[in-house]
């Protein structure tokens, strides 16, 4: 077990591409995405009712070592400032899994 940071980002689906890009830019290349999440923020309710217009939210969870957090925040913040959404950072312990994929 070793300490990691959980980075959670909730934002409009249309931003997802930009957010994932900014994660990759900050060297975070593993993440999990839950799509079509409903919610309410400053911009009002984003329930599924506009699903077809791609106006729902996505939830992104990225686990990274503590030292990477700063670069992620710097990379993601401008996007959230411009398009809205929320970014949280919290602590967790990760169970190191050492996967034995032959070809990696």
């Amino acid at each position, binding site marked *: 077990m070793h300490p990691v940071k959980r980075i959670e980002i909730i934002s409009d689906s249309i931003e997802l591409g930009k957010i994932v890009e900014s994660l990759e830019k900050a060297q975070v290349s593993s993440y999990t995405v839950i799509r*079509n999440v409903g919610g309410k923020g400053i911009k009002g309710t984003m329930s599924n009712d506009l*699903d077809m217009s791609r106006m729902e939210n996505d939830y992104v969870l990225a686990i990274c070592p503590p030292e990477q957090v700063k670069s992620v925040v710097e990379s993601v913040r401008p996007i959230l400032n411009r398009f809205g959404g929320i970014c949280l950072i919290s602590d967790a312990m990760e169970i190191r899994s050492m996967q034995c994929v032959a070809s990696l």
Partner: protein
Amino acid sequence: MNFSLILSNILNPPVLFFFLGMLAIFVKSDLEIPAPVPKLFSLYLLFAIGFKGGVELIKSGIDQSVVLTMLAAILMACIVPLYTFFILRVRLDTYNAAAIAATYGSISAVTFITAGSFLQQLDIPSHGYMVAALALMESPAIIVGLILVNLFTREEDSDREFSWPEVLQEAFLNSSVFLLVGSLLIGVLTGEHGWEVLKPFSQDLFYGVLTFFLLDMGLVAARRIKDLEKTGVFLVSFAILIPIVNAGIGLAIAKLIGMSQGDALLFCVLCASASYIAVPAAMRLTVPEANPSLYVSTALAVTFPFNIIIGIPLYLYGINLLWR
């Protein structure tokens, strides 16, 4: 008379199910069409009208009236956002005015489809190439809207940075336009033969899918109605009057270039309708300063129901008067 037209429009299953959807929200029923189904249905509807339009286009060929119709379509898609922008600027800031203007310059495919099924019910013929006009009218308003934002906010707000490639991408390659145009081209390529094999899927189910889809639209529109309080009287009146004005201009152009009655109705409906899918998404991305609940709610909770219930028969009434 007009009222009998409105009545025969309302007593259509799709329109009645639209009402049923609205009613469900008003009486707080928990009815809902679960998440990806409306999306699937809208993909289906775009696919079906695109494909059918393509097949009919290749059958009828491209003559002068087709070209005139297409030019008229592009013209309307460019001027509607222009003049509505200046009307909206009276009360709203540049960002919101441009976003709403773009919304009304573009079109609503479902309104078009509902008008088409209304024509079919009255046995009034229309041309398949009107689908091409629909496709042409989706995108220009987005571009016009962004040019307006750029022109009128240049000095004050220097850190706006949207890239034109990204904008053009959003405008011309968003899923609605892409699927519609793609299906149309495939319809052109496969012609009568492709039509034969796909007919049970793309034709026979069409009306039922439209009915179910309008049930969902009723739910969606009614949920948006409470947003109208914040929107204010100005925008609500705008959302009813501008469609009538746009349909009027469309009607004049249609008469001028000699469209048939059916085509004229579809053209009016294209001019009168407002986008609540492609344009809002593009605006969120390119003009995030604008408030989505303004442009989505007016288009969805006012203009859409107005067109579906009163607009379509009203415009046909006007056409019947003029074409007689």
